[in-house]
């Protein structure tokens, strides 16, 4: 199993290590997932997300290549801007969800840890007719997420740049403890915050520096459990759960990412789905009966199993039992009654609006 540069640091902080996508990462620290979750909603949290992959694209054909392999229209993405996007298979299934950064001399694609080799091979295969160079920078890059309403104030104590004039989904280079670091005003929690890309060799120093600077603001180191509950409340999909190779973006309610008026891999299949309408849709639901919905639990309508839960839990912020899952389109309207089969027992639930928690990004 792979370990990030911060493995020993996590152990020293009392992190409870688990396997995730081939990596040994902290699922929680001694404060516990619920306290870590609240810290991010109310103050700040620091996450080691060095397991994520970073792929650089350079060369004269970079924009043409990227327009083909992902769904957003990047011709409108100015330098130092970043965008959420998707890589699709020809049949419309999702290869991965990504963040694309337009940097001065290159583009950066941030991919999920579990998909890193698959994505790189897939991108390589699509790049043969283009004058582009791909580099997998994941091994030499550490990635941290500093998230929460106090994240900017914390980072501001360490950098000379004024962070007030840095909008959401923009990037810039800053100097942190003498090291050049790329920061993006991005994240996966539904809060304002930053993701930091730094040389792996500087991970220890910068992590400690952020932790020390953040303590007076109420910052906690946060593990995978809090990362999952935070993104869940904001209804951000997690690859392997809400999105997979067998699910297309229209089913996953990610149609807003798609630039229909350009060519991209998967477009024809998606156009067909758009025309015929998706047969199933991702919905958010709230339990009416007391019960905890969990991944893979069947969803039934009038006694018939029609789908399954992709993520479910007690929402720490909203203090309600909530879930995401797929149901046929005809049962996907807000207000529809569902039954979640919880350990063999049908429990009443009803479809509610997504997101459960409205993101408070800058």
């Amino acid at each position, binding site marked *: 199993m792979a370990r990030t540069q911060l493995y020993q640091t996590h152990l020293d902080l009392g992190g*409870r290590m688990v396997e995730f996508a081939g990596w040994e990462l902290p*699922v*929680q620290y001694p404060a*516990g*997932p*619920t306290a870590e979750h609240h810290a991010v909603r109310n103050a700040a949290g620091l996450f080691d997300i060095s397991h994520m992959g970073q792929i650089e694209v350079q060369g004269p054909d970079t924009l043409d290549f990227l327009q083909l392999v992902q769904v957003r229209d990047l011709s409108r993405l100015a330098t130092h801007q970043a965008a959420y996007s998707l890589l699709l298979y020809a049949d419309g299934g999702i290869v991965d969800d990504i963040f694309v950064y337009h940097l001065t001399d290159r583009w950066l694609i941030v991919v999920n840890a579990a998909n890193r080799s698959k994505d790189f091979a897939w991108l390589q295969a699509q790049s043969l007719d283009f004058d582009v160079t791909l580099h997998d920078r994941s091994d030499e890059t550490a990635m941290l997420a500093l998230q929460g309403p106090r994240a900017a104030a914390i980072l501001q104590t360490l950098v000379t740049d004024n962070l007030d004039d840095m909008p959401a989904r923009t990037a810039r280079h800053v100097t942190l403890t003498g090291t050049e670091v790329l920061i993006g005003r991005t994240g996966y929690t539904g809060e304002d915050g930053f993701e930091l890309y730094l040389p792996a060799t500087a991970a220890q120093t910068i992590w400690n520096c952020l932790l020390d600077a953040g303590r007076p603001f109420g910052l906690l180191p946060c593990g995978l*459990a809090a990362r999952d*509950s935070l993104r869940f409340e904001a209804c951000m999909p997690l690859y392997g759960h809400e999105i997979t190779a067998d699910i297309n973006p229209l089913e996953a309610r990610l149609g807003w990412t798609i630039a229909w008026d350009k060519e991209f891999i998967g477009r024809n299949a998606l156009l067909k789905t758009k025309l015929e309408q998706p047969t199933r849709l991702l919905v958010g639901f709230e339990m009416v009966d*007391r*019960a*905890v919905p*969990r991944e893979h639990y069947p969803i039934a309508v009038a006694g018939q199993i029609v789908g399954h839960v992709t993520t479910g*839990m*007690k929402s720490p912020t909203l203090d309600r*039992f909530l879930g995401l899952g797929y149901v046929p389109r005809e049962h996907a309207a807000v207000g529809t009654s569902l039954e979640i089969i919880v*350990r063999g027992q049908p429990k009443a639930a009803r479809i509610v609006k997504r997101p459960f928690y409205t993101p408070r990004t800058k």
Partner: protein
Amino acid sequence: MASHKLDAAAKYAKSHEWVRLEEGVAVVGISDFAQDELSDVVYVDLPEVGETVTAGQEIATVESVKAAEDIIAPVSGVIAEVNSALESTPEIINQRPYDAWFFKITPTAALDEELSRLLSPEEYAAFVEEAG
């Protein structure tokens, strides 16, 4: 692994419930080790008062951010009382596992024999040590 607290007055099941006799009634909860393994508890499903239970029977559920686990009756009898405060504030199971009782059982004549099959605090500590 941090060491876990024990209640010297309780006996323990290998499935991590504790049972304490209070005025002839068997009070049941889960051990400090169990709550720590579970992580933050978010939900409990308690039995009905008046329900007859047999030692070894799954009669309640505790769910955490991590998993759902069955609570097994350590002794036989009738459910005399349930701690419904756990439904609204399950976090007290993490905070004070030996105060956060789940239910009380009015035991049967088999009580002494059933208790003798459970672990003493020392035996349970050794069992957890071995398992961990």
